[in-house]
Each structure stands twice: as C-alpha cells, then as structure tokens.
C-alpha cells in the first residue's frame, strides 16, 4: 500500500510567512523539520552537518521567501534549498568518508513483544542500509519520492535535473533497491 503524504498547500501558512509572521514560520518549520532532516541525513550520514544544513535551509527560506512564486510549492522549494546545500557540502568534502553514528533508542514495546520489536528494527535497518548503498543521485530521488511523495516534476526542480532523468533514476533506484533487498534476504 502506498500512502503519500501530500504537502497540503491549502493548510500551509505561506502567505502569513511572507509577511514575516513568526507563528507562521514556526508552523512551517515544524511541518518540514523532520522530513528535511531525514532527507539531509540520509544523503550525508552525519548528524551535526545535517542539523547545520537544516538550520541554513531555514535561514535561507526566511531570507528569500520573496523568490517563491507559488505558495503550493513551498515544500519542494525548501527541499531544493536543502539539496543545493547538500551538493555544496559534497563538493567540499568530496573525499571525506561517510560517517554513520549509531543511536541507541529505547524500544517502544507498547503493542509488540521484544522479539517482534527486534525483528522489525532489524528489517528497517536492513531496508535503510540498502537505501544507503544506492548511488547518491538515485538515493536523493528515491528519498524525495518516499519522504514527501514529491511528483517527478517537483523532484526535477529540487535536484535541478530533467524530468526524464528523474524518471529513469527513480526506476533504476527502485530496481536496485529491490535487488539489494532480495540479496539481503537470501
């Protein structure tokens, strides 16, 4: 089952944010902070850098909100800024080895027993490892597709690529992910 969470342009207080109302910005940031962080983190695999990029993205969004033409495209515009920051960071740290910090979480055992929880966590970890093994352009496209359910043209805008290229990248990313998961299961 595929459930895409739409960015709900009608409910986003973009016009109020344009006027500089901090409550509107607060609502917008609250809506996008976790998806944006997840996207940046999965692209860079560094917590501190990801937080810095999220902060820079928010600051740039406040500064350049006048450049946003359609209020309904706020989400893709924000992800576009973050994507550019990621590219800049990648260029700077071209040879830097990816770091992956491990976080220890408290298990949420309300509805499942510890064994089920462990199996689920293991499956999710395997899935995310497979996503992490994809090539960066494929990973970006797939994450944007998964996290915000962006359409092809929106992903093309964010990644500054042709729609055809995005379509092909998405196809090959899904295919590669399927193959990796199959190999993991075997």
């Amino acid at each position: 089952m595929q459930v895409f969470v739409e960015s709900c342009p009608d409910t986003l207080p973009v016009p109020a944010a344009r006027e500089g109302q901090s409550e509107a910005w607060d609502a917008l940031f609250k809506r996008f902070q976790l998806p944006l962080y997840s996207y940046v983190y999965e692209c860079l695999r560094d917590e501190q850098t990801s937080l810095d990029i999220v902060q820079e993205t928010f600051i740039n969004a406040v500064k350049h909100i006048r450049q946003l033409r359609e209020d309904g495209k706020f989400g893709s515009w924000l992800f576009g800024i973050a994507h550019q920051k990621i590219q800049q960071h990648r260029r700077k740290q071209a040879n830097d080895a990816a770091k992956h910090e491990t976080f220890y979480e408290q298990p949420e055992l309300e509805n499942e027993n510890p064994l089920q929880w462990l199996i689920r966590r293991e499956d999710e970890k395997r899935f995310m490892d497979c996503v992490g093994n994809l090539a960066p352009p494929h990973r970006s496209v797939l994450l944007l597709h998964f996290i915000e359910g962006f359409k092809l043209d929106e992903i093309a805008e964010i990644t500054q690529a042709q729609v055809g290229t995005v379509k092909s990248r998405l196809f090959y990313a899904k295919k590669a992910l399927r193959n990796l998961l199959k190999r993991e299961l075997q």
Partner: protein
Amino acid sequence: MKHPRDVILDRHRHAEPRLNAVRSAVLSQLQSQHANPDSPAEENRGFVLAQVATAFWRELILPCRRTWIGLAAIWVFLAVVNFQIRPPQQAQLASVSVNALTPEIRAQLILQNELRVSLLKSDMTQPEEDENARPSGKLRSAIRREWMAA
C-alpha cells in the same frame, strides 16, 4: 507493514529535540530581524548585484579562466617591456612641465615653431610649381603615351 516514509521518519525521531532547538534559534533570529528591520529595497538591490556578479563570474570568467590568465600575463609582459624599452630622454621630456621651461628654451621653441609654419607654407605652394613644370597642362599618362608612340 510500514510505508518507507514512516520507516525513514521513525529512524530520525530521536533528533526532534535538536531540531526544535534549531527551529527556535532561527525563529529568535527572525524576531530580532523584525526588531531591527533593514530596508527591503536595499537588501534586494544588494542581492541582485551579488547575483549578477556571481553570474558574470560563473558564466564569463570561470569557463575560460586559463584564457583570461593568459591575456592578463601577456598584458603584464607588454607593460614591463614597454617601460624597459622607453628611451630615457623621452621620459625626461615628458616629465618636464611647461612652467619649468627657461626663457632660452622657450625662444628656441618659438623659433622652431616659426620654421615649421614656413615649411608648411612652402609645402602648400609646391603643387603650383609642379603645374608650372608641365606648361602644356597635359596629364603625365598622355605625355608618356606620346613619347612611346614617337
């Protein structure tokens, strides 16, 4: 079964307190900006200028930077050669101002100027003398043709 979106977001929920801190930091910055607002027109103009400069640099200079560096090096070389070759007397003359001329030099200059004027006048009268040299008033080509026929 969870949707990939939930899997990805759940994986990063632990970072929410830090993200909240980031959000409040940006909002406090926004509020402080509202307390001391800059002129939007000036800010916009500065931004446009920066954009133009960046575009100029990116589109014109960066793609052929080696050519630009080569041209600059040639210009520097030519300037150095020019300063080296320049005769010292000419440089000295160029540095002498009109006020610094002595009366003798000034008299010499006036004399030279008069001589130049007289020479120019004699140049202007030269064609009349040439006309006198050909009393027939015929063209040189015609004279030559006659001479060949003879």
